């Protein structure tokens, strides 16, 4: 767990705040009493990240802070699993149910998950960092295994038979010899049993999984294909109003004067002015828009850095404060000067990364409802408990007076960690005395959310004639520290992350900075191999002992036909690989360039994340990562000038579409002997360097800035 803890405090997680101030202890007995009948298994984790926070005492009993998840088996055989994780399209509602189904030996159809409801589920730090599969899945397996063993105990007692004579299958405890079986519900009956278990419970090894490890259709897929699923933006409460917020004309603007009289006089309109926050709530969306237009506000603008100077700016403006985080120490190994002196060839290059937006198809939305001093907010966030604290802080009330519920959400990709929409809706609802729904427009999404950080990466390296990297100096300004260290065996290294003051709000994005760091590193490796006249794959092998990375490189190359590739003017091939969050990826890309226009023709990805839980789900994540990654690699960039976002619409900000999709092959390297790690992020990291190297192969042009072809064309730059 030590490593996981470190992962959470990576320097680029700008949107993570310090732990909430309230850390009241909860009486465990009081909590269990509140759960009602049936068999309740709660998992106690002493060294868990769940300890980062706890609940408040007032109001509904909340889970003691050391409980990370629990499940409840009812008399009617239904199994309800409670987890603070949320479903954003990564399909964990299904994969977690598979894990429970496996351990409990009970059909998927009996299992229901309650997710991301701060009143019902135990504390959870958030759904990000690809932690659900390695951590939550394993925890639920333990709880399920404990429940199963306990049910056997009950059967032993009920039938007075030897423990070894029982098996568990299909939601029943079976005594084979006696040809008798008892359902879970029958064994539990009207009893109320609570069991708190520790983490040292044996779970089923991956090679004996029967439900997990296979593809399962999305558990509630029917609701999605019939339009019945209610996203936050679809919710409606009796008497609900529609909110709108007045946005400043530019980032960094502050309110000078404001006249809300005219807006206030409109019928059925509530206007709120609280500091720089100005918003309205009205009975219909267009009434709210009209009222907003009646507000006369003047803003004080301050000059802001623009995109054209951003890279220079980031290098010259180190972060003023790390906001309590520990500063990143440079990583040093060997002696860089000696390494450079020993080199036969040296290479210095600078790589740049533009800000990009997440563009989740469902824009941010929240529905806030106050009942007395208790607030319920339905909102789409990857951190329900974090957002609960944000709201509580904003309104100076205890966490316990806030309930955050996260309906399964229209994607996030790391972009929905924060609670601004929830707070805005709650502020309006408090003033209006009625529930208020606030749905951001696409333009608000593009302007007032946060972005994947821009950055500069400078690399200085040296290689010997026989193809060994002798020196590696790597400076990353602002992009972030994820996967900053190479897996290559380099004797002499210096690696440093420099936090900068970012003019735009920045935060997490699928795979964080691993994309930027892999882009710079793998492009540089490609440059080095070409400087030496070596095959890029062979060059990597010479400098790489890591067996898992070598294995995916080999698998990708084999399936792609790397050895048989035939480059020509206008047709090129590239390869790249890496590791992030415990998962290994390698990609080969083929591109065609004609009249300067770049088309990614084919991508082969080999991926290894330990034991595979749901092969189709995993392929979906890899294919999704490749297509999403194409945007940031080739053409996505936030354009901004003096505090204004210049391309806040999908007509101006280009995301990948069907026509951009290459032929994709995926190779899953299933390592049943290794624990499963998350897979939603890592596949994206290898795409840009594989494509960039292929563009070089096709054109002789080395593109060192992401996106590489903002106009869709190499020559138009």
């Amino acid at each position, binding site marked *: 767990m030590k490593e996981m803890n470190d992962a959470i405090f990576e320097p680029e997680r700008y949107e993570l705040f310090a732990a909430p101030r309230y850390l009241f202890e909860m009486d465990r007995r009081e909590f269990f009493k509140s759960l009602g009948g049936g068999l309740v298994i709660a998992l106690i984790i002493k060294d868990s990240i769940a300890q980062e926070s706890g609940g408040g005492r007032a109001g509904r009993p909340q889970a003691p802070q050391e409980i990370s998840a629990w499940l409840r088996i009812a008399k009617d055989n239904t199994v309800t699993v409670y987890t603070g994780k949320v479903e954003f399209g990564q399909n964990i509602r299904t994969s977690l149910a598979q894990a429970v189904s496996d351990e409990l030996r009970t059909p998927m159809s009996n299992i229901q998950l309650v997710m991301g409801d701060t009143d019902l589920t135990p504390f959870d730090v958030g759904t990000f960092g690809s932690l659900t599969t390695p951590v939550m899945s394993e925890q639920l397996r333990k709880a399920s295994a404990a429940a199963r063993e306990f049910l056997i105990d009950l059967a032993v007692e009920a039938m007075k038979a030897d423990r070894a004579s029982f098996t568990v299958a299909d939601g029943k405890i079976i005594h084979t010899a006696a040809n008798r079986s008892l359902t879970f519900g029958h064994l539990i009956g009207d009893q109320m049993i609570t069991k708190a278990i520790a983490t040292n419970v044996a779970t089923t090894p991956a090679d004996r999984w029967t439900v997990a490890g296979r593809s399962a259709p999305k558990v509630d897929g029917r609701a999605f294909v019939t339009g019945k699923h209610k996203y936050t933006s679809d919710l409606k409460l009796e008497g609900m109003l529609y909110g709108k917020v007045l946005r400043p004309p530019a980032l960094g603007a502050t309110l000078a004067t404001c006249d809300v009289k005219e807006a206030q006089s409109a019928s059925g309109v509530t206007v709120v002015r609280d500091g720089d926050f100005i918003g309205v709530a009205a009975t219909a969306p267009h009434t709210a828009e009209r009222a907003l237009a009646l507000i006369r506000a003047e803003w004080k603008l301050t000059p802001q850095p623009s995109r054209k100077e951003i890279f220079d700016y980031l290098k010259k403006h180190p972060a003023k404060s790390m906001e309590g985080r520990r500063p990143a120490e440079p990583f040093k190994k060997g002696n860089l000067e000696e390494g450079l002196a020993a080199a036969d060839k040296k290479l210095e290059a600078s790589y740049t990364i533009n800000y990009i937006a997440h563009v989740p198809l469902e824009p941010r939305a929240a529905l806030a409802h106050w009942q007395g001093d208790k607030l319920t907010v339905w909102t789409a966030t990857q951190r329900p408990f974090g957002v609960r604290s944000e709201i509580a802080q904003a309104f100076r009330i205890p966490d316990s007076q806030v309930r955050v519920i996260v309906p399964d959400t229209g994607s996030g990709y790391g972009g929905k960690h924060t609670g601004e929409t929830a707070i805005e809706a709650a502020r309006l609802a408090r003033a209006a005395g009625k529930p208020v729904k606030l749905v951001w427009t696409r333009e608000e999404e593009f302007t007032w959310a946060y972005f994947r950080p821009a950055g500069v990466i400078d690399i200085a390296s040296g290689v010997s004639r026989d193809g060994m990297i002798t020196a590696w100096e790597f400076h990353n300004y602002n992009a972030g520290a994820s996967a900053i260290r190479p897996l290559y065996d380099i004797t002499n290294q210096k690696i440093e992350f420099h936090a900068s003051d970012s003019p735009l709000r920045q935060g997490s994005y699928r795979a964080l900075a691993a994309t930027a760091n892999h882009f710079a590193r793998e492009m540089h490796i490609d440059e080095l191999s070409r400087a030496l006249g070596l095959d890029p794959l062979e060059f990597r092998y010479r400098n790489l002992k890591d067996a898992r990375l070598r294995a995916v490189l080999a698998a990708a190359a084999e399936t792609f036909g790397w050895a048989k590739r035939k480059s020509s003017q206008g047709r090129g091939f590239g390869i790249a690989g890496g590791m992030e969050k415990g998962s290994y990826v390698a990609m080969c890309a083929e591109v065609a360039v004609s*009249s300067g226009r770049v088309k990614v023709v084919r991508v082969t990805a080999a991926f290894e994340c330990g034991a595979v839980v749901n092969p189709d789900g995993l392929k979906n994540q890899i294919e999704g990562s490749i297509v999403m990654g194409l945007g940031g690699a080739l053409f996505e960039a936030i354009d901004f000038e003096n505090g204004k976002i210049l391309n806040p619409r999908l007509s101006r900000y280009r995301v990948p579409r069907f*026509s951009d999709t290459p032929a994709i092959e995926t190779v899953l390297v299933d390592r049943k002997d290794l624990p499963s790690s998350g897979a939603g992020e890592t596949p994206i990291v290898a795409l840009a360097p594989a494509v960039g190297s292929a563009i070089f192969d096709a054109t002789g042009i080395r593109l060192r800035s992401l996106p590489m072809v903002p*106009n*869709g064309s190499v*020559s138009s730059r």
Partner: protein
Amino acid sequence: MIPRGFEYFAPRALNEAVSLLQQLGPDAKILSGGQSLIPMMKLRLASPPYIVDINRIPDLNYVSEANGSLRIGALVRESDLEISPLVGSGYRLLADTTKVIADPLVRNQATVCGNLAHGDPANDHPATMLALEATIVAISPRGEREISIRDFFTGLFSTALQPDEILKEIRVPTPPPRSGGAYLKMERKVGDYATAGVAVQITLDEAGVCQRAGVGLTNVSFIPLKAAKVEDFLKGKPLDAAAIKQASEIAAAESQPMDDIRGSADYKRDLVRVLTARALKQAIDRAKGGA
């Protein structure tokens, strides 16, 4: 993203629409497909006080051949052209064009006539109609009149249509034998405007000499551009490789692109050169009976 309020009229006959326009004056806007107008209204780039929806007028949805030309009614959708066998076989340039406009969902609603009436040099049909030497039929209280496509585009987003006129029909001359055309567009993504586009329509004589040439350029000028110099150059020449090369260079010189998010002016000019050459080759192949 909600348009400003407006009054809505849905006339059931063409003469009713004409008199409404007269009555409401120049602030009224005609709604046909609405795929340009409604997005503009949502962004409040346009806020007409009156909308005259012509979609309920019968007999405006036809694609037919009569008196030596193809007639396209005011309510013909882009997707109607896309699936029309008549267009697919006899008017390849038109078929090419309609396939690359916006995206399939937009094409199900957008009208061909609206694409012209909008007067946007970034739209695709203007270049095509210029190459095809189309005629526009407009109707007003003064009756019908025909406008040559050469005179139709008068400025950025402005046309020869008077405020009380409705674009009723487009007439495209039926190409004589040994004719061929092609439209090539470079777009960054589906649904985007052209970075540049080239429409070519040619007629050859039996010896392969160019008798007639029409060339239109998309999104490389303020006003939809008829490449008259290229047309003059091509007429009377055998269309060999050298002629194609020279014609494409003239087209590049004739274009007047500007730097924007789709690329630099130089890049677009080069694109015009490349696309003109390719479109000419394809048009020649088609004129000779090839694909």
